[in-house]
Structure formats: C-alpha cells, structure tokens
C-alpha cells in the first residue's frame, strides 16, 4: 500500500567539497549530491537523461550542472534538461540536520 520514504544519512556536510559533485551509493543506486556555495544542497539521480552520463562529475554553474559527457545542462532543483535538449532526471529531497545530510528516497513497497 502506498510508498514509504527511506531516509538515508549520507555524510557530514563539512566533509563535502563545495560546488563539486559527490557520488553517493545507496542500495545499488548512484546519486549525485551537490552542496553549493549559497548553501543549497541537491541530490539527483546520477544518470543523465541523454545517454546516462555521470552527473556527479559535471561542472556546476549556479543551480545547474553540465553533464561531463556531452554538456547537457540540467537544473538541479527540478532535474529538467535545459533547452534545446529535453528530458528529466529524478531529484530527491534533501535535509541537513546538525552537519549531517539526509536524502529521502522513495521506497516502493
């Protein structure tokens, strides 16, 4: 019945690089986690909508990341590929508590 949310503790915020992605592996899934210099934290599926490029290694510009494979520009907040490309990657809600980062994964029952 319905979905439950799996809340995973990732890492200490202070140990993460700023404006550079981090690869997070959880339950066989690869997630790209970004801590931005303005304090925002985003988690995206580490799989570009184009051909599956690893977004964690992409270059960060504001609230966007450029895929390292063919330079698609993906919005971190909504996972949307920017014009002229089309597509969407899954995003995950993130919480920060006491220097710890938590990602909320949907856990299909």
């Amino acid at each position, binding site marked *: 019945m319905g979905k*439950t949310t799996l809340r995973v503790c990732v890492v200490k915020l202070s140990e993460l690089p700023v404006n550079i992605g981090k690869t997070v*592996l959880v339950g066989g899934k690869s997630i790209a986690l970004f801590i931005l210099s303005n304090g925002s934290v985003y988690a995206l599926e580490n799989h570009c909508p184009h051909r599956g490029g690893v977004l964690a290694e992409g*270059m960060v510009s504001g609230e966007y990341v450029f895929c390292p494979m063919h330079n698609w520009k993906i919005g971190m907040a909504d996972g949307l590929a920017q014009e002229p490309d089309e597509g969407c990657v899954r995003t995950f809600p993130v919480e920060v508590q006491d220097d710890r980062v938590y990602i909320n994964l949907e856990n299909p029952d």
Partner: protein
Amino acid sequence: MPGQKLVLAGNGMAGIRCLEELIRIDPDRFNITVFGSEPYPNYNRIQLSKVLQGDTSIDDITLNSWSWYESNGIRLYPGETVTEIDTKNHYVRTDKNRITAYDQLILATGSHPFVLPLPGAEKKGVITFRNIRDCQKIIDYSKNKKTAAVIGGGLLGLESARGLLNLGLNVTVVHKSPYLMNRQLDQTASHLLQLQLEKQGMHFLLNKQTVAITGDESVDGLTFNDGDHIEADLVIMAVGIRPNCKLAEDCGIPVNRGILVNDFMETQVSDIYAVGECAEHHGVCYGLVAPLYQQAQVLAKHLCRRNTEGYTGSTTSAKLKVSGVNVFSAGQITETEQTKTIQSYDGWRMTYKKIFVEDGKIKGAILFGETHEGTRLTGLISKQAPVEDYLNAGSTQESEADMVATMSDDEIICGCNGVTKGTIIQAIKEKGLTSVAQVRACTNASRSCGTCRSMVADLLKMTIGDKFDSTKKEEPICTCTTMTRDEVVADIRKMGLTNVREVMHVLDWKNKNGCSKCRPALNYYLNMVNPTGFKDDQESRFVNERLHANIQMNGTFSVVPRMYGGVTNADELRKIADVADKYQVPMIKLTGGQRIDLLGVDKENLPKIWKDLNMRSGFAYAKSVRTVKTCVGENFCRFGTQDSIGMGIKLEKRFEGLYTPHKVKMGVSACPRNCVETRVKDIGVIGVQGGWEIYVGGNGGTKLRKADLLCKVKKSEEVLEYAGAFLQYYRESAKYLERTSAWVERVGIEHVREVLSDKKTRDELNQRIDEALSTIRDPWQSVLDDRETQKKLYQKVYAGETDHQ
C-alpha cells in the same frame, strides 16, 4: 578529329601560362604535348627565394599539379629535353630519342644563369640559383659551412644572400658596381637598402671585381682585382641570366640575344613560336613574369585565331623579396636633361620616394620603406599617365586600404598576372568569394610573387565586409559576456585579476556563474598571465583535468602513465601488468600516442593505482602538452640522421605538464620518411643530415592540417629554443580550445615566423615559459600527498540507511 598537335618545349612559367589560356579559350582545339627538362610539374620559380629563406617549402610552390595535366588531357614528359627540331618535317626529338610531330611548336625554354668565366668557377660549392635543384643544392651544401659569398648585388643576389643568412652562414655580397641593385635604384635608395641589409647581418664588398675562385676541389675563397681575398665555403653566382636559345639557333631559327619574335610571338620559321625569357621582342629580353604572362596571353589568342592587337612591350617593375625591407622600382629611372623628379625623403622613418617625369608624363619610380603605391605607379607608368593623375589621387600618406579604395576599376592589382581591381571585385561578387585563396584560384591574382596579397585582402574587406575570413568580427567568449578573448586577457593583465570568480564579477558577466565554456577558459588565461601567483580553480576544471584521468562513457576512468618519447622498459611493463592484475583493469591498450592506457578504472582506485605504478602522469586527459612520439632514429634505423628518441625525450621532459590553450602533440622523426607522422603534429621535428626541420600547426584530428615549416636549425638546443618560443607565443595569443593548427591558420605562418625570427623575442618567450614550467608538479603525486583531496574528490559515499518513516 582530336585537334591539332601542339608541342611545348619548356615546362615553365611562361609556357604553361600560355597553355592555361589556350585551354580557357578553346579547350578542344589542341592535342597538347609538353617536354620539360626539370622532373617537376610547373612550379613558381619566383618563390624559390622564399624556399631558400625558409618561408615556404618546395611542396608548396607547385602551380600546376600532376593532375592538372591529366585532367586537361596534356601529355607531359617531365625530365625530358628537346634536343632537335626538324623544321621541314615538323617534328622534335628529345634526349630520350623520342620523336614527336607538331603542327605548332612553342619554345618556352627560359634562361640559364650566367657563369662568369673565372678560374675556379667549376669548383665544388660554386652554385647558381635558378631551379629547384639549385635551391636544394644550396641548402644541402650550406650544412656545416660557415661563410658564403654571393657574387652579384642585384635582386637575385640579395634574395639569395638573405636565404644564406637564414641558413646560418656569414654572408658577404660582392658587387662590381658601387651601388646595390644599380639597375633598379638610384644612389640614395641603394644606400638606404645597404644600411637595412647590414642591420640584418649582411656584409658588402662594393666596387669589387672577382678575378679568381680559390680552393682545391671545393671553393675556399675569392680573389679580387685589387689583390684582396676573402674566405668563402660556398659561392652563389648571381650575375645575370642568358636566354636559352641554343636549341633554336642550332636548328636554324634566327636569334640575336634571344629568339627573335614579332608582336604575335612568331619566330621567323613558320609554325614555331617563342614566349618567355627565351624570346627577344623589339630588342628586349624580359626577365620578370608580368611581361612574359602578357606574351603568353597574346600567343594563346593568336593560336586560337582570336582577335588580338599583339604584344607591344611592357613596363617592368621590381620588388625585392627580403622580409623587413621594402624596395620597389619601375619604369625608366635614368635622368636626362628633360627629366624632372618628385622626391621625398624621411630620414627618421627611413622612407624615400622618387618619381621620374618627362614631358609631364610619369616615366619611372623608386620607392623605399613604403611601397604600397608600387602597383598603382606601375599602372600609371605603363599608361604614360600625366603626372596630375598621380598627384590628384590623394595624399601620399594614405594607407594601402584607402589607396585600394580610390583606385579605378581598370587599375591593376596583381602586376604579375595583370589582374585589375574590376576583375577581382566582379569575381568576389559573382562567385561569392570570401578568402584570398579563393580569389587566387578564380582570377590568378597573387598567384606569382605574392606581394599584392594584402591588396586582394583589402578588396575582399571592401566588397564583403564582415564576411571576409580574416576580418571576421571577433566573437565574445560565450553568451555569458559580450567581451572577446583579447579584451578579457587584456583586462586580466591590466587589473591584475587572479581568480575566475573575480574576473566574472569585475568584468560584469551577464551570467554571474559563468558556464562550462567560459570558466575553463578564464582559468587557463589566469594561469597563463600569472603562473606563479595563480591558484587553480578546481570548480572550473572539466572533470578530466580535475581528476587527472580520462572519464569514460560509463563513468569509469583511464590511466595513461608518462613514457617519455614512447620508450619504456621491463620494470615499468611489469609494474603495469601487476597493477592491471591487482585492480582487475578491464582493458590494456596501446594508444595512438605511443603510450599504454589502462581503461575502465573506478575513480576510487585512481590514487591507489598511481601509487603502485609510481610513474608520472601522462597528461592524456588535459589541454596541455601531451605525448612526444618518436621513431627509432639514427641508433637503429638505416635511414636515421639524428637521435630522434633522445630529442623526443628532451622535448617531453622540458615541456611536460604545461597547460596550453588546447592539447599540443609533438613528434620527432629522424628523417623525412616521417614514421611518426611528424607533419600532422602541433610541433613536428624532422632530423635531416646536419640539422633539424621544425614544423608547426599540423593536426591529425577532426580537421586535418599539414604542418608548416617554421625553420631549420643545426643544433639540438635550437630545437628546444624554437619549440619553447613557439609554445609560449601560442600560449599567450591563442584562444582557449584553439589548436595550433587553427591558430597558425588564423594569424598566418608568416607572422609566426617573423615573430620567432628575432632572437631577443625567442629568449623572452623562453624566459616566460620557464617561469610557467617552474610551477609544475606532477598532479598524481600532488594528489597522493594530499589526503584531503583524495577524500573530497576521489572517494564515494556508501550511505547506510537510518530510519524509515
């Protein structure tokens, strides 16, 4: 019927120009056979001076390729000389005993250099300068020689002397008149010329007559009529030319100095014609291409039975092809009682102008320093225009572009080929031309001596504005800003900016975060401008340069360790094999760059692998100096002339790890067979007997480009010196992501050569590259030394579940 049988004796500039015109007018009229003593297709003899000076290569001076002959159905016998003409039975015989019948025969046998009948003139090392073979002979013979003498201070003598200077010899020009180029210049101009050439390092002995050439088997010096003697290991004789008319004379065709022709280039024997330097028209034998091409056009029309007024003689003009010196002369430059002159002399700028006027008409001109009025003056002189036409044409200080703009459509732009401004503009408009090369191909303008190239460029600019290739308005770096590369770099220097964010902030980037295009570029420019104060911006690096490995499709990476010059050993191979086993590397591959690639490595294993390998980074992932490929070279190969492996290793060690606008690949071959594809490298070094040739701007990638010869040097240290200067000049002036091939194409190889020809400039560039090199550390070792970076950039997070909700 397959047309009349036309035979051409002499596969040179005038003869082939005539055939081109024939084919243009009436392609099917003739069945053409060409005999040429030289084993090459028709080439631009004029440019031999530039070949000797190292500004162009023999490959690049071909005017009509082998396929041109083929596609026009011309039977060519290269390396075959016509030795006999049977004027009664209408056939020619060659030195290979071939007999070919003709309906019409054109003699275009050119001239041969005059050799002074001096004792010792036959000695080894006494060379004339007329054809490709002579040119190669001079280049080969000059190796390991120190001093040279040129006999003859005319155009050819001075151009060859400049060539010898470039080949590293100490050069003395011996001239029997008290003034250089005395047939084209007056004393003032000649004196200015001498000063300039002395500044370039040439020595002069004027008013000197050579009486003997000394030496045993090879030349070792010259003796003069006043008893003086100088040393010379090589002597070029450039004292004039004599028309080649022996063949004609032997077969009963009337000759004087040259083969006698009328206004239709007919000799006095029916069906036989003569054009070019071998012909004598109204007592004149010409020695420059412009008049010869006019003759060729008249003859072509005449043979095709088209209307022509005939050839009526030409006004000749001459320019000296020595870079850094502008000298021009045209028409009649002797003064009689009737002559009036217009003169100006600027001792500060070293410019001089003298115009010769008789009966109110312009008869001749000499220009020194500023020569862009030359072409126009030649036109006015040949029209015998009233002096007012010249004086009213505008200020004498006007720029070349302004001058081109005010010229009328019937004025000549390309003197050699007689192409007018109107013809060029029409071709540009009708055929949509956008580059000088296209104009050259369509109209012949700038195809011969090349001095009108800049005027053709001006016309392109005038006619099509921004669409012209080399005047294209510079684009901004990317859409985040309106500023161009040059503006940004200038501001970085001026304001002393030090990091990417600061640049974007101070220079008011529209997109304040920048993008994946501008940020890596800015990071590079900052590093280039201030290597010692630079702090790398990791965030602005593409992943490969941030992690010092190549990312692959599936997110794994590849590892290419440094192997200098492509040389390895059993120890390294063993370590590589062990690493491959230990980390279960999915693939080991030999790369196109002569290195070994371990592919499919997980990011977390990168530092561990580097540690186990204990080798330096091969930089296969960066916009930086990459590999130097080498061939086996003199220690192994039977053709090897130099230690190419040693040179490759030296180059790689010296420039290892240097960041550049785009990747830079090098190669060193030990002979021109080029087993490492040296001529498609950014810097390609080719060992030749006694020296090295340095090629630059080659590319074997997306847009193939053959490298240009930068220079030839004798010593190995000079290879490093030129390579360093070239690299640094490229680093300082190219746009980010512009390969040397595109950059050389954009700025022009002549420009690069000119900049690098100055020793002081080279030294300064090398000092700056040394400064940049001094900051380089092996990036793999740096990562190994820095646990923090290892953790931040290379480690993944394995997240544990915390709580369910």
